[in-house]
């Protein structure tokens, strides 16, 4: 088979893995060797779906022995199969890297014979890259569930990041949809990698000899959203637990895209991209904005509001903490203002040392007032035309967001993904959807949520339920 055909098959088979980042490790260049990495990572292109392309993301092989219900590569599917030789893969990576197409390699694989055999093949390809080509670029390897610890160590000292996908937000779903991947086969190696990373830090003090670090960019995981009945509350709790327990660098969410027909799988009309987007927003709040998972969502209202972002949802539910006076509130509170990002909060904190900020000044600091204006005052005054009424603000935010989506404009930094119109059909697939959190909490506070006609079409069912 031609290399081009192999690449087509094996990149096509790998494209559903979303964890394509090249960040987490700063490795300086060395004279005489190819490559380096930067802590922030570099995106080298953006594909037609708007996702960042930073690593050569391929499978070593799609000739998989397993039969996971949701996967294109399942044994039972009649699709063309291919397997790279270790050398082909190494040469391809180097060829791309030297042309500045990529930061490195993201290698995963279907189960070739058995987990250990597969991992050995992966190790060999990466060994050629590191040893023969002296390659210092980024390598992310997805470990195959069930791989022996000995091989995990071999792989771990060759790569920068490792990941094991937990695949589904619960063991029941995993059992049903990926019968050959036991929870133990995923969770145990995750614990093993965590310990390995820790042990490595201890080594650092003990030995001054040149040593190879173990998984320096940390480990990550991924789960599929919308193919199984778990709620957002369940998912966010789980991911908070994963960050804590396994000290993960990232938890990725992947909107379920139906590729197989299987009675076990839901028939979605379209991928739940908006839901995925909201989950990422919530994830960001936890990782960069010092929010606790229980502040963002609770068991009584277990789904994130599709109509507004979770930070706005939080602010509306804690309206007693607002308005925030830009010239006074501490940095931590600046971070909590909807529409103000980490950068924005820092800029405000810096600039207000020189002068009392007015709304014009905020514009000069490149703070977008679109959402923020409802929640802030400058020198005691609201922005022109702002009425500080939570129900009114909610409705306004919903209307604004819909207008933006219609124009195809995306919200701020988080908009890595499309936001289609909130489609309650696909949305509700997860479970019996309960009323949205923000709207219900408003109602609980004794404020009836007014549903303007333009919102009614989309959200009426949810809002009215309270």
């Amino acid at each position, binding site marked *: 088979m031609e290399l081009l055909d192999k690449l087509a098959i094996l990149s096509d088979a790998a494209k559903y893995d979303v964890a394509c980042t090249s960040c987490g490790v700063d490795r300086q260049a060395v004279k005489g060797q190819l490559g380096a990495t930067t802590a922030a990572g570099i995106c*080298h292109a953006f594909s037609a779906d708007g996702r960042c392309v930073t690593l050569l993301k391929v499978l070593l092989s799609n000739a998989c022995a397993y039969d996971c219900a949701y996967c294109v590569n399942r044994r039972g599917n009649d699709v063309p199969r291919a397997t790279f030789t270790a050398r082909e893969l190494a040469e391809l990576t180097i060829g791309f890297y030297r042309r500045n197409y990529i930061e490195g390699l993201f290698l995963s694989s279907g189960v070739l014979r058995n987990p250990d055999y597969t991992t050995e093949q992966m190790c060999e390809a990466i060994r050629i890259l590191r040893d023969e080509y002296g390659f210092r670029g980024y390598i992310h390897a997805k470990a195959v569930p069930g791989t022996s610890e000995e091989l995990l160590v071999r792989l771990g000292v060759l790569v920068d990041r490792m990941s094991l996908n937990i695949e589904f937000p619960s063991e029941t779903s995993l059992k049903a949809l990926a019968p050959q991947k036991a929870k133990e086969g995923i969770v145990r190696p995750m614990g093993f990698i965590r310990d390995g990373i820790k042990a490595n830090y201890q080594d650092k003090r003990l030995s001054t000899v040149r040593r190879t670090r173990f998984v320096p960019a940390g480990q990550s995981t991924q789960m599929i959203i919308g193919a199984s009945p778990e709620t957002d509350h369940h998912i966010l709790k789980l991911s908070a637990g994963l960050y804590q327990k396994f000290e993960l660098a990232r938890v990725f969410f992947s909107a379920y*895209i139906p590729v197989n027909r299987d009675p076990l799988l839901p028939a979605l009309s379209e991928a739940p991209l908006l839901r995925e987007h909201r989950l990422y927003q919530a994830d960001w709040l936890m990782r960069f904005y010092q929010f606790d998972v229980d502040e963002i969502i609770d068991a009584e209202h277990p789904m994130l509001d599709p109509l507004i972002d979770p930070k706005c949802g939080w602010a509306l539910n804690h309206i007693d903490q607002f308005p925030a006076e830009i010239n006074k509130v501490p940095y931590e509170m600046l971070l909590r203002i909807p529409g103000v990002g980490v950068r924005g909060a820092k800029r405000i904190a810096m600039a207000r*040392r020189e002068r009392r900020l007015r709304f014009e000044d905020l514009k*000069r600091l490149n703070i977008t007032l679109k959402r923020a204006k409802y929640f802030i005052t400058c020198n005691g005054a609201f922005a022109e035309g702002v009425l500080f009424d939570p129900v009114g603000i909610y409705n306004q935010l919903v209307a604004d967001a819909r207008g933006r989506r219609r124009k195809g404009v995306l919200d701020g930094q988080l908009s890595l993904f499309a936001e289609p119109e909130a489609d309650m059909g696909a949305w509700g697939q997860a479970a019996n959807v309960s009323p949205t959190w923000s709207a219900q909490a408003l109602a609980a506070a004794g404020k009836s949520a007014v549903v303007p006609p333009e919102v009614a079409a989309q959200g009426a069912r949810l809002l009215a339920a309270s």
Partner: protein
Amino acid sequence: MSVAFSYLYDGTLEGLLSAVFTAFQRRECPEDIVTEAGLQESLFVSYEPLSTDLEQAERVQAGIVNKLGPANYDNVKRVFLSDDQRKGGIILRYLQYTLRQGPHSCTHLANPVVHDFEEVLSVVSKEAHYMLQFVRFAQLEGGVFFSRIEPKASVVPLIMDHFAERFNVQPFMIHDARHQLTGVFDTQKWWLLDARELQLPEQTSSEDEFQSLWQCFFDTVAIQERRNPTCQRNFMPKRFWGNMCEQIPAQLRHRRPQTTTPTQAARQLLPA
């Protein structure tokens, strides 16, 4: 009413810094510091041409480094590399403000003078980062890797270190066709060439193959169900696509014209 006046300088960083020196020395506030090319004839502005004085420039440089720190001098250099016509005046007013107020004043982001400076600075820095992302090299006969770019600011000097480090095992050239500036790296050191046109050797025979492989990969990784061209263009503006091989429409691929003339740079790099 006194007539407004501006300084004229020769377009070099040294020239601009000399002009700043003059303004400080004479305690003057010129409207702007412009080059011959950027000059807009006006009845209400008079222009005074200044000569470039290396010693003066170095004194200003030392002043900035000592008072505001090396990072701020670096920022001044970055703003200087911008295509913004107002950069001379912006740098002058920024230095007048910050050198008087001290290093903390560089964070006075709501101050109009600091704001203008920061705004231009962020355009240049963004453009430099875009180049780290979107530069594409093609291998030429003889082994040199070549890239053609058309950035909105003259950022070649800002990106050479990055590539010279990670690609220290391969000679390469980055040709900025818009600012007629070429960065050349020979695996030991890098330098800049003022090159209007370059005559280059052919691409190697394996180059086409790598480009097809990359195009194939690039087309394949996109998920149909998630198609989102708006998002794609937000992150990767269309103005870069012309120099990125994966963005060339299928029917035009492999038939790209080479850039033209004096071979100096390429020859120096190539084995005879």
